[in-house]
């Protein structure tokens, strides 16, 4: 069996696709292990879902092809939480509030702060505490 990988994805469900048991099928029919970080249905009934999927490259590929048949868009790069580099002052205030060290100091000498997307579990603490509004969420 080929090696398994974990990918972090953001899925966007347009109106009306929210009720279908898509995740169930990802697990059952495509052998994927799913770890959901955050899900939201907006008042317009559009849905957002940020999750990790673990499986073989092939299974993930097929799973995503299946997901796309529902008109759902799959985003591999633009995640739920983002750090706006232009707005970040590198004060470091968010760091004690970030549970996973996704926000961390990259350079001890200059105290530069960086965001490691892969470690972010989308708890949204940084959005609440950053005084400069540098952290934001796509939904």
């Amino acid at each position, binding site marked *: 069996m080929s090696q398994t990988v974990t990918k972090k994805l953001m899925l966007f469900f347009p109106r009306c696709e929210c009720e279908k048991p898509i995740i169930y099928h990802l697990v059952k029919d495509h052998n994927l292990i799913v770890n959901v970080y955050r899900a939201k249905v907006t008042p317009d009934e559009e849905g957002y879902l940020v999750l990790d999927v673990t499986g073989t490259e092939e299974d993930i590929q097929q799973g995503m092809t299946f997901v796309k048949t529902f008109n759902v868009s799959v985003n591999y790069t633009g995640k739920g939480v983002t750090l706006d580099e232009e707005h970040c*002052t*590198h*004060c*470091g*205030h*968010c*760091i*004690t*509030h970030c549970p996973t060290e996704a926000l961390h*100091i990259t350079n001890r000498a*200059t*105290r*530069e*702060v960086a965001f490691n997307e892969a470690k972010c579990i989308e708890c949204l603490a940084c959005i*609440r*505490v950053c*005084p*400069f*509004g540098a952290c934001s969420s796509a939904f």
Partner: protein
Amino acid sequence: MKTYEQINNRIESGKAVVLTADEIIDYVEKKGLATAAKEVDVVTTATFGPMCSSGCVLNFGHSKPKIRMSEAWVQDVLVYTGLAAVDVYLGATQLRHSDPANMDHPGEFRYGGGHVMEDLVAGKTLQLFGLSYGTDCYPLREIRTYFTIGDLNQAIMLNPRNCYQNYNVAINDSQRSIYTYMGTLEPDRKNASYCSAGQLSPLLNDPYYETIGVGTRVWMAGAHGHVYAEGTQHAGGGARTPDGIPKGGAGTLALTADMKQMRQEFVRGMSFRGYGVSLALGIGIPIPILNKDILKRTCVSDREILAPVVDYSTDYPQNTGKVLCHVNYEQLRSGEIEVEGRKVAVGSLSSYYKALEIAHLLADEIRRGDFRLVEPIAYLPKETTMKPLVIREKPL
């Protein structure tokens, strides 16, 4: 021994030796104090962080017909109009009209005075709304118009208190989250928050106010401004370490500069959940190396600077004066301090990264001959302490 004039001559001829307050530490260690004092002309210090006691005077010029505004709002943020006809004062902590504040606790405080100041410096188009009772000389009773900083006659930052010499480390001793101007503090001492550039900070490099005084030219968000008075709550007389470093707030500066010369990246609106709005400002101050003693004091390092750890759930609000312990800035920068035997994660509100950037920008300006030093016309008091506000019965 050097004089201001000699240093300025060297700056003019492009020969000045300028180092930042963090570079000077290693430099003096290598060269020795006596040699370094001869070689180095200026040490640059800097800070970037919340400076709540900030604001600006704006002059709009006169409309046709004229108005003497008795109430006014810029971007729906109330400004003070108890000045001449079209002068207003905009304060950094003023909330926007209709901001729900803490009605739905903790409030978000997304936009206020500090953000207006940032938008003004950024050159954005802002709304002015003014009301008046109307007079014979100023008949217009209502005005709504749009302007940018370029349309104003003056936009002068006028800050009663900036650059605190040292500052508290805030911690929460209670069992609920608290929302303060030092950020959100989790219950049971789960995190702490500090706010100083430490070894880069201006008044920590000149602890006895020997070179930074009234009239000193300062770098304010890119503009060249100056110290116009001692800052409010300036209290140089508090406890100090044997090396003279204040162990608490101590000195402050009142600063002013032309906002038209400022850069947005150093004038930043701030929102503190559950508390309110403020302004973060970048300031750089050069210290002329007039003699060995002044040089020695600029070599202060994070390890030697102590900050008081204060409980913001009871001791700070109730003004008890209690300090849990002191920690140094080296410990604070490590991200973890120890308070009464327990480890506490600590974060900063002041940006060392930006302070470092400012110290280098100022050093470059001085090396290029674009920034000359000014000798103070008066010195800041060293002995004063801070008076409390006494709540008294009405005198008979």
